[in-house]
């Protein structure tokens, strides 16, 4: 289709652009002149691919005979862009486009150079038997990778731009035939409404897309795996990709999506069912074990067997403070460990493991600052937190664990049971872009009652 270009003329626009961009060192204003042909090039050197520019514009300029030929040639290049306003020209220049002034008309071409378009390895979500390549940091490469996995003509891509100062491009992908229309409408309207200055990465975008300002449970999944993306596109979800970030946002996401790992598709049926139920048990134990400890030791030691109660009492011999302070201290120290291990440089990581294991484990018990059983419990809780495949949910669980613990401290076993039900209620009340967050899907139908 013919590209509409607004009628801007060279003589008024070019001096204006040069004036705006002159002080920066990588701005280049290159007039090309041979015989009686003349064109002017304006571009920012550091973001433009010099080789491509040379091969596609400069060489043909010197090889062609007349200016009209050159104009015809230039307007037939595939990477020509629309011009809408002078400000847009400036923004496009910063993205790596080249402004060519020829015959008093201005043409805009995309000669962007990217350094970061190699697909990365999966770091956050490794699997044993799946593909090991994740998305790259460049938007176009990512869309390429996704399209290669999902050869369906109804896969639509729409481009938006967010951030008043940064002007990052954001692409939405969805399968036109099966996407959930309600969710799509909400996401599109939310994207148009964003008026922040800075959007740094996909995580930031997620926060802006959320309905509530302060939320605990995530309603979108952040992933870097292409197989998960294509799995979700075929399930009717909307994918949001941001330029410069290798994480894609999948929306809407319900609770059960967070407990699905791509391994479930690659293993035999019973193995997948077993690992799946393991995850739910891990989830449950992560939330309730600290509360259970406080409830049993301080409120109702007669729930479990006599021998267990006596072991508990025996292991708490010498601990100077009540059980809930003990639990809180151990949990906070464990949180320190986990937070710190995200930032440890590789040289120090071995030391940290030793510190954690020895000091927190053995020495604390020997010094009677915590009981044996509590150490076992805290390590079980720490490990079971990472059984959950998607990180956002495990972070959310970390926080809600303390809420459950608080209610157990106040009200005993009643508080434990009721706070777990309260958590279920809260999840059931949440809706993720029009989808119920916590609904069990038992009938294999498209439209559930």
């Amino acid at each position, binding site marked *: 289709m013919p590209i509409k270009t607004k009628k801007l003329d060279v003589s008024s626009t070019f001096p204006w652009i040069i004036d705006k961009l002159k002080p920066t060192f990588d701005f280049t204003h290159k007039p090309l002149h041979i015989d009686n042909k003349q064109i002017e090039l304006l571009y920012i050197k550091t973001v433009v691919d010099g080789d491509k520019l040379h091969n596609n514009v400069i060489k043909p300029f010197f090889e062609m005979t007349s200016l009209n030929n050159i104009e015809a040639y230039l307007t037939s290049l595939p990477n020509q862009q629309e011009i809408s306003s002078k400000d847009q020209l400036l923004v496009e220049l910063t993205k790596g486009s080249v402004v060519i002034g020829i015959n008093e008309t201005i043409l805009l071409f995309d000669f962007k150079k990217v350094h970061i378009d190699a697909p990365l390895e999966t770091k956050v979500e490794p699997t044993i038997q799946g593909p090991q390549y994740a998305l790259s940091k460049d938007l176009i490469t990512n869309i390429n990778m996704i399209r290669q996995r999902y050869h369906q003509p109804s896969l639509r891509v729409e481009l938006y731009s967010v951030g008043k100062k940064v002007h990052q491009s954001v692409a939405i992908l969805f399968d036109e035939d099966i996407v959930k229309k309600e969710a799509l409408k909400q996401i599109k309207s939310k994207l148009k409404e964003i008026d922040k200055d800075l959007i740094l990465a996909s995580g930031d975008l997620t926060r802006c897309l959320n309905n509530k300002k302060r939320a605990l449970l995530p309603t979108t999944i952040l992933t870097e795996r292409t197989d998960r993306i294509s799995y979700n596109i075929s399930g009717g979800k909307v994918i949001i990709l941001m330029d410069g970030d290798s994480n894609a946002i999948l929306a809407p996401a319900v609770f059960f999506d967070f407990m699905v790992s791509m391994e479930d598709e690659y293993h035999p049926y019973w193995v997948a069912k077993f690992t799946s139920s393991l995850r739910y048990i891990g989830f449950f134990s992560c939330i309730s074990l600290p509360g259970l400890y406080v409830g049993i030791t301080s*409120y*109702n030691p*007669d*729930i*479990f*067997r006599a021998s267990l109660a006596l072991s508990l009492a025996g292991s708490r011999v010498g601990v100077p403070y009540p059980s809930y302070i003990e639990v809180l201290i151990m949990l906070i120290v464990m949180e320190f460990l986990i937070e710190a291990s995200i930032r440890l440089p590789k040289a120090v990581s071995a030391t940290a493991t030793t510190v954690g294991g020895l000091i927190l484990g053995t020495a604390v018990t020997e010094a009677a600052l915590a009981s044996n059983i509590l150490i076992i419990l805290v390590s079980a809780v720490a490990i079971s937190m990472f059984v959950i495949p998607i990180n956002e949910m495990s972070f959310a669980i970390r926080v809600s664990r303390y809420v459950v613990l608080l*209610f157990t401290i*106040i*009200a*005993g*076993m*009643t*508080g434990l*049971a*009721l*706070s777990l*039900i*309260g958590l*279920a*209620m*809260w999840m*059931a*009340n949440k809706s993720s872009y029009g989808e*119920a967050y*916590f*609904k*069990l899907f*038992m009938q294999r139908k498209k*439209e559930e*009652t």
Partner: protein
Amino acid sequence: MNRYVYYLLYINMFASMVISVPKILLHERKDGAIIGMILGIIAGMLVIYAYLWFFNKFPGKDYPELLKKYFPKWLQFPFLLFLSLVWFTAGLNTLISYTFMLKRFLTPEMPVVWIASTFLIFISYGILMHTKSILYTIEAILIISSPVTIFLSTKAFMSPEFEWDFVREAIMYVYRFPSYSAFTASLYIFLGITNLLIFNRAWSTKRVQVSGKHVFLMGLAGIMILFTIYIVPLGMNGFNNIDHLVYPAITTSDTLRMTFGVIERVLYLFLLFFLAITFLNLLLHWHVTIEILKSLFWIKKFKWKENNLTPYIFIIIFWLISLKTVTSLSEYQLFTYTDYFFYCLPFITMIIIVSFWFVKRRAKV
């Protein structure tokens, strides 16, 4: 068939396994409980059929809305107010009974106000949720709790200490005039379906289906649960002296023993899982109450940051009434008042069913 309708019914059935029904039934064991139970089952199935038939005609609408459309104004206001009172009392009865039970068996040192407040905090969040979210919560929690309940009942039947002779002795008392208390108590088990009054609006696209098969399935579940309520305490505790037990259901669960389990004394397992089910039951009842009240009183100007605050007034009223009654009632008063409440229930149900007929006639559907 819509499985959420079954849940409405099951929650009430499971919850009444501990709350008041066992004591009333076992009190009447020598005076015609068995015939009363059979009559109650038949009446219960008829009530289920009537409700399903009515709400089949009006998909997606709830009862207050229909009353507003087809009834004169001077009639609907006191009637709806009375209904909300009935549901509130049902929920209050559940709350107080279970609070007393928790105080007696689980944590005797905790003050009653504290236990009741813990319930009330979570209930206050729960009844303000959307109707559909409540159904999702119920489903999720029922899936976890009902296998445990079924397991415990099966365990009781298979226990070597279960003496079938006591049960046979109880059945030998069949030639007695049916007792009204037993009839109302058995009817109460099936009255979970009456929550459809409000919950019908969660299904705007799919109609509640009426067929003999569904009614029969629901009735079958009711029969099994009713017999479990009656037979298990008798078998484990003996026949003569069982009315001296203040809480027969809980004492019966104490007689079971999981030899190889982590929790040896089944009482605690029982208390905690029935805590969940009772909480859901309470949630259902008070959600109906607050929705009826919301349709009656809605003060438009009472806003704060775009949140209408009228429901919070109701919640504060609920808190005050509950905390006052929890501290001032004794166990004996609780039992007698529950008895009187159950006596009124068949009449109220009849009135509601008669009003169904009127509404249907006026709507000409």
